[in-house]
């Protein structure tokens, strides 16, 4: 009975998700990129950073290099394939860090209230006031370019929005009678935060995590494009950076389009996933859709 209830809720969620057009398409594109990233070693033709034959510099697509080569005669197809790994890794890791830390701050601030809340929210407000990209650029420039520094940089800038969102949820949950009831029944602060409040903010965390992946992939591509990416790891952004800096952009569209299309497609897939999930979580959506 109990399992069947939870099962129905999960079934409903997926039914709504897949009947949501954006959700469906987002999911398909997402699966596509996951597939590419997982099986990159099998899909590549040569090692992505292997410089090729000098005679094959800026080679347009042919039988050997399906998508042509760059100014170091490296294979674009293989670079694009491996680039998905960078984007997805940074995206997931950063989203995980920001959502966990943001949720932690949000729950503590919202639940404790008073001075703690005041101080934490001041910090959050301050971070939200800072110009995001310039801050990321400055941090990346100062800290040096590496994939983990990029993760740290984006996390520093991104956690406050999650904290703010979770806090507002916690504030309304705190007002809800079942939390007051739990206190009345003798529950301590720790129990209330972990057993009463946390389970009720998980849907929001989930939606926020998807959004964070979007923003992270976006930020990583911009930073890399501006030349602040990890030079040892090929990402779509760094590909575009080298293309732009080499001045070969106009002559070699095969070098420009694949990374641009991949960045856009991956971000769109997550935007779509995020929109469909938050639509479904919106109170009233379930009813109007007739579930």
């Amino acid at each position, binding site marked *: 009975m*109990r399992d069947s209830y939870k099962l129905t809720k999960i079934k409903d969620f997926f039914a709504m998700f897949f009947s949501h057009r954006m959700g469906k398409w987002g999911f398909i594109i997402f699966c596509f990129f996951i597939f590419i990233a997982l099986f990159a070693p099998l899909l590549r033709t040569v090692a992505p950073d292997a410089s090729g034959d000098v005679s094959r510099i800026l080679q347009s697509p042919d039988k050997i290099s399906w998508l042509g080569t760059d100014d170091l005669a490296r294979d674009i197809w293989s670079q694009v394939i491996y680039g998905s790994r960078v984007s997805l890794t940074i995206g997931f890791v950063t989203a995980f860090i920001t959502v966990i830390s943001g949720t932690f701050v949000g729950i503590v601030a919202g639940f404790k209230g008073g001075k703690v809340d005041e101080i934490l929210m001041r910090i959050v407000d301050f971070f939200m006031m800072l110009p995001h990209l310039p801050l990321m650029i400055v941090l990346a420039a100062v800290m040096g370019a590496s994939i983990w520094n990029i993760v740290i940089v984006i996390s520093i800038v991104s956690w406050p929005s999650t904290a703010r969102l979770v806090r507002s949820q916690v504030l309304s949950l705190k007002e*809800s009678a079942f939390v007051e*009831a739990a206190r*009345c*029944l*003798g529950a301590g602060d720790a129990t209330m935060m972990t057993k009463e409040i946390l389970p*009720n903010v998980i849907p929001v965390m989930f939606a926020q995590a998807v959004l964070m992946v979007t923003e992270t992939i976006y930020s990583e591509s911009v930073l890399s494009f501006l030349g602040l990416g990890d030079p040892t790891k090929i990402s779509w952004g760094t590909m575009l950076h080298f293309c732009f800096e080499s001045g070969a952009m106009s002559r070699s569209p095969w070098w420009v389009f694949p990374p641009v299309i991949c960045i856009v497609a991956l971000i769109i897939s997550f935007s779509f996933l995020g929109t469909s999930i938050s639509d479904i979580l919106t109170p009233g959506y379930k009813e109007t859709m007739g579930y």
Partner: protein
Amino acid sequence: MSASNELVLKVRNLKKYFPLKKGQVLKAVDDISFDINKGEILGFVGESGCGKSTMSRSILQLIKPTGGKILHHGDDLTTLTAPELRKRRREMQMIFQDPFGSINPRRSVSETIRMVLAIHKICTNREEEDKVITNILKEVGLTPVETYWDKYPAMMSGGQLQRVSMARVLVLQPDFIIADEPVSMLDVSVRIGVLDLLLKMRELHDISFIYITHDLATARYVCDRMAIMYMGRIVEIGPAEEILQNPQHPYTKALIAAVPEPNPEDDDVELPLKDSTSGVSGTEEGGCRFFPRCPYGKDICEKSVPDFTNIAENHKAACFLLGDKVKTIV
């Protein structure tokens, strides 16, 4: 009724002030004193914003009162440390107004009660817990128990959920429960069922209740005594029937007159009130808070706060125009 003379709760001069802008304070609860005996049901009746919910939360220490004493079996709750208070909570419980909001939507009925057992470490093993849960569900009338065991709040009606609330509170075997508008959000047809359950629990376990409501009719149905509250103060307190049949304070009179009656042949009612639209007091300090709306107000009402006058045994009201005083002032 079944009220004995053993004192369970003694509240003295309870105050709860909230700071407002520009140094003003909102006196949500202002100098409230009363006693409750074992097995007694005391109703607090008043309109929204009269401070009845703030009072109940102050008594249970869910918010910290500004002043006053709350003696539970002689111990002042305001002086207890946090761990002491958490232990004491077993004995003082609350039932909330919103049945849909007061139970965590992510827990089933049995999990809801199990959680309470876990907090206070009441049982040693799961079988024992199951037994306690089964018994308590039977007691509150959620039978057959198997039907309700794994139900989630979203699948239940308000009346059923209020019974779950009751069950979750009763497993702790409290000696005193505050019921904050427990039936005001329920459908008319199930209200009496929940109120009857309340009365049954009193009979079975000798629990004392504070019944908070805006509804005189349900208060009459369950209460032994009732207190009428107006803007943070008790204006009249006494045996329930006595107050309804023989109201003394002008506000009590207005309140009783206002209640619509399910009798189509009743005549239209004129409200014994001076100002028909405003419910906001003009006198902040010093005077009777009902003065701006009182049709019988005198000079003195504006200047000083009336004390309680005894009307009959256990029945008293705070008004200058009552009893012996009436003669001296008028």
